[in-house]
């Protein structure tokens, strides 16, 4: 029976391989500059992986390249002198990544030869390109080549390496016999013409950057393991004598490769059938938004593979629903998902690898106890899938400009979650139990919380910054994710949904399978909007200026008909007159509204800050302010006093760090303040009582 199964699988593999080659080659006929052929075996007894790798690298530049630089990421967990360890120590996080005996990660190349058989290891040495210089870091290996690589020339290297899976690394890790394997193989940096290698060492806050490549990876594990990996499984061979199984995965045009293995995975497959997910009306609606024809935005079917921990088996449908929503809206808005599979991994327990993206595969993460009003794990599924678009297909340098994927993707995640689910409650837990069971929290949209938290780091760092140059991890995260997303949401409100939708789609389509930079994004924004919005990026992406416009005071006072005092006119005393012409009814009210700019940041040329004032008789007045000075004042003479005043009533400026000072109404938010004050009061009463009964 076993034999029969093998031969049938072989046949299946051959058919799949043929199918794969025939379909994908037609999609991407051109060659990638990098090709990997890797055979890897997982040895669970020692938590080691042993592998051989054939790396083909082509010089696509006009430079003569004397060396090749390889990332050896797992050496970040080798000792306490690595850059990751040093940066963790600075942040008081060292314990989390501290090297326990025999549990730190490392990677060692045991052999590296050219096809001619020349040994390159003697010419290899570790380098640390980033500042502050850390000569002890071993995450970048520079290998001198026997002779410089000419333009167009290809070099093939045969490597053998072994690596210890870190027990508590960043993103990769193992716990018992559950493994998540990422950043695990020697991988060249990106060679930039005229500039040399862009190959940064591994930092606490940095993610990655690599060239698009074609991968063929054979993964051997003990038979009991369920495996998932980037790309498509095209073959499976069982070695019954050894109790092992080898899976072959292939994928073209991706820039990283990750895999996971655990005996506690359930593997579930579903098909994303575009015809069932999107109605003709929805196609029409999005086509109208983008000024395209519905045929131009048609989506393909995608095979969805879920590897979920058995303990979460009751959440299978919740996972797929979120993934289908993500495939649908990212696809409709930004363009079709270009690969045939997407693998969603609920990462093995305690491997510290959740919430992370890889091309065609992502790690989500959930909990056994969920609250139905909290969008978890939905938020993380949508976000990590979304990285296939921002990072995967449009592949920015995450070391240097992390906002380009994290910020754009946080913005996109919020939009997808909002249309697919609406607002969600904030996930607060105590001892693993949702607090939502006890206390009612308001449901919020991502943009509402993003803008709130990003205001705490505005003055620390600009959004566009090298990831290791941020003040700390919190500033990195809040600037790159939430602040960037808030700025993009502001841009959308400033330009309108249609223009913004076109900007995002243009940026995605133009830079598919490329490495765009912040300038490229700005260029697309200016081109599609037809405006020069350089100021917007200067104020909100490249600066640390706080943006806070406010209504600082509102005064309405009754005017009397008689005005006392003497009024001179050409030397003669004249009778005092009412300030308005007769015929209008008295009393009149003079309303003075003072606006201020508390922050350093300002709105740009040609843009106006709007003020909407409503009076008690229902009349509405609008005023505009260019917002350049520190303050301005508007006066209104009206039959009734002011009822409400709103600065930016269209709610464009989400970047405003304090929206609480943007409005005025005499009565205030009514019951809200006494309710809140009493809430605090009751809390303090209970705390006092608890303290009193403790002793």
């Amino acid at each position: 029976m076993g034999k029969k199964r093998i031969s049938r699988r072989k046949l299946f593999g051959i058919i799949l391989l043929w199918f794969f080659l025939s379909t994908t080659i037609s999609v991407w006929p051109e060659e990638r500059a990098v090709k990997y052929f890797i055979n890897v075996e997982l040895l669970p007894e020692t938590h080691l992986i042993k592998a051989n790798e054939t790396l083909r690298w082509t010089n696509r530049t006009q430079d003569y390249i004397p060396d090749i630089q390889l990332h050896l990421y797992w050496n970040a967990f080798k000792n306490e002198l690595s850059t990751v360890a040093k940066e963790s120590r600075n942040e008081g996080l060292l314990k989390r990544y501290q090297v326990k005996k025999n549990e730190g990660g490392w990677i060692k190349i045991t052999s590296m030869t050219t096809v001619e058989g020349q040994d390159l290891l003697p010419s290899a040495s570790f380098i640390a390109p980033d500042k502050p210089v850390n000569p002890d870091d071993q995450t970048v290996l520079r290998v001198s080549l026997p002779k410089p690589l000419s333009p167009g020339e290809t070099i093939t290297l045969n490597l053998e390496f072994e690596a210890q899976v870190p027990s508590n690394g960043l993103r990769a890790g193992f716990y018992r016999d559950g493994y998540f394997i990422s950043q695990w193989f020697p991988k060249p940096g990106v060679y930039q013409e005229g500039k040399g290698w862009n190959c940064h060492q591994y930092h606490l806050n940095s993610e990655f950057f690599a060239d698009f490549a074609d991968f063929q990876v054979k993964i051997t594990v003990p038979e009991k393991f369920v495996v998932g990996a980037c790309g498509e499984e095209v073959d499976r061979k069982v070695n019954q004598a050894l109790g092992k199984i080898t899976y072959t995965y292939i994928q073209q045009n991706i820039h990283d490769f990750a895999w996971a293995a655990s005996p506690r995975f359930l593997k579930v497959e579903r098909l994303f059938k575009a015809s069932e997910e999107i109605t003709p009306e929805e196609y029409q609606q999005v086509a109208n938004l983008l000024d395209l024809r519905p045929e131009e935005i048609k989506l393909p079917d995608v095979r969805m593979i879920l590897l979920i921990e058995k303990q979460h088996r009751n959440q299978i449908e919740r996972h797929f629903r979120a993934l289908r929503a993500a495939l649908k809206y990212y696809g409709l808005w930004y363009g079709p998902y270009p690969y045939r599979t997407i693998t969603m991994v609920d990462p093995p327990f305690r491997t510290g690898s959740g919430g992370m993206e890889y091309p065609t595969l992502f790690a989500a993460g959930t909990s056994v106890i969920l609250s139905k009003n909290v969008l978890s794990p939905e938020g993380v599924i949508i976000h990590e899938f979304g990285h296939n678009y921002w990072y995967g297909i449009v592949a920015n340098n995450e070391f240097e400009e992390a906002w380009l994927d994290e910020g754009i993707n946080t913005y996109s995640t919020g939009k997808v979650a909002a249309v697919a689910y609406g607002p969600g409650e904030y996930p607060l837990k105590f001892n693993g139990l949702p607090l939502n069971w006890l206390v009612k929290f308001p449901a919020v949209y991502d943009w509402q919380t993003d803008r709130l938290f990003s205001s705490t780091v505005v003055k620390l760092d600009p959004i566009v910054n090298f990831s290791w140059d941020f003040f700390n991890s919190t500033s990195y995260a809040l600037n790159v994710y939430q602040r960037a997303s808030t700025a993009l949401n502001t841009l959308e409100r400033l330009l309108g949904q249609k223009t913004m939708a076109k900007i995002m789609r243009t940026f995605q389509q133009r830079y598919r399978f490329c490495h765009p930079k912040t300038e490229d994004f700005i260029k697309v924004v200016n081109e599609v909007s037809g405006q020069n919005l350089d100021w917007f990026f200067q104020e909100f992406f490249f600066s640390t200026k706080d943006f806070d416009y406010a209504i600082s005071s509102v005064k309405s006072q009754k005017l009397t008909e008689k005005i006392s005092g003497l009024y001179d006119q050409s030397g003669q005393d004249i009778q005092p007159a009412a300030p308005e012409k007769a015929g209008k009814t008295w009393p009149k009210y003079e309303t003075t509204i003072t606006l201020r700019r508390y922050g350093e940041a300002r709105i740009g040329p040609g843009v106006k800050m709007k003020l909407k004032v409503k009076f008690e008789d229902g009349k509405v007045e609008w005023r505009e302010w260019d917002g350049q000075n520190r303050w301005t004042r508007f006066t209104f003479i009206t039959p009734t006093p002011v009822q409400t005043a709103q600065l930016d009533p269209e709610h464009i400026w989400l970047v405003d760090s304090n929206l609480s000072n943007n409005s005025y109404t005499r009565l205030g938010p009514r019951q809200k303040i006494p309710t809140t004050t009493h809430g605090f009061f009751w809390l303090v009463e209970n705390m006092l009582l608890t303290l009193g009964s403790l002793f």
Partner: protein
Amino acid sequence: MPIKSYLFPGTKSALIKFKLAIYLWLIIIILALVAVAPLNHLVRANLSHLYLGQPAFIPFELHLIEIFIAHQDFFQPYLYLLLILFSLTAIIFIFLDAALFGRMITSERKITFSDFLADGSRYFWSFFLSTLLYLPIFILFFLLSRFLAFPLNIWAGKSVTEWPVIISSNLKLLLFILLWTASKLIFDLIRIIIIKDQKTVLLALRQAWFFLSKHFFSLWGLYLLVGLIFVLISIIFLFIGRLISAEHLFGLVLMIILAQAYIVFRLFIRMVFIGFENRYYEKNRI
């Protein structure tokens, strides 16, 4: 039947002396007012003219967080104020406990504020000493709970799913609460003996130890039963609280009444504890 002979009379004496709960409630209100006043000022200064809009562009709660973020410099001195206030409260509560125990244990049925204060000052010193004595007992029980949690830690540490982690952390909390109630029982009994038998703190400890060596489990059982009733009623309070919407003035008033009723209820339960413990001791001491 222990419930009939101790719990009912204990509850009855708490009902008879209900005025005590009101005294304590008023004092707590004053302390809480002092604690909340600066926060209230901050909220009013920043949000009392806020226009939320229909529907609100941003939920009010987020505006609240926003002004807290914008006024971070307010919180450092405010936390110091709270720290001082809470330290003072600890001392004040020793006085109030002395007054409460004194009036609960006395056979006089009539409650006056002056008697309440008189008992507070009469027993303050012994209650203060008993608190000092209780601290090492509390630490001992805390360490015991950590020690007993050891197998739970091993179980959770080895697990391959999240369930043992959640279950063990909640069991650990439960274990701590159970041990804390046991330590609290000793503490209460020492104080009852101080008043009832007019003993010094150390002698009261000896007497309490001696008494509990015979009666611990039945008394603790009663303690836990009352504790359970307290928890159940608290959940009902919270549940009703969730149903009330404070959007309108009526709802707000209802919410305030309910919340303050809960505080009085907590104080009342405290009196029930003292009532039945006192009754139990009275009936079973030799």
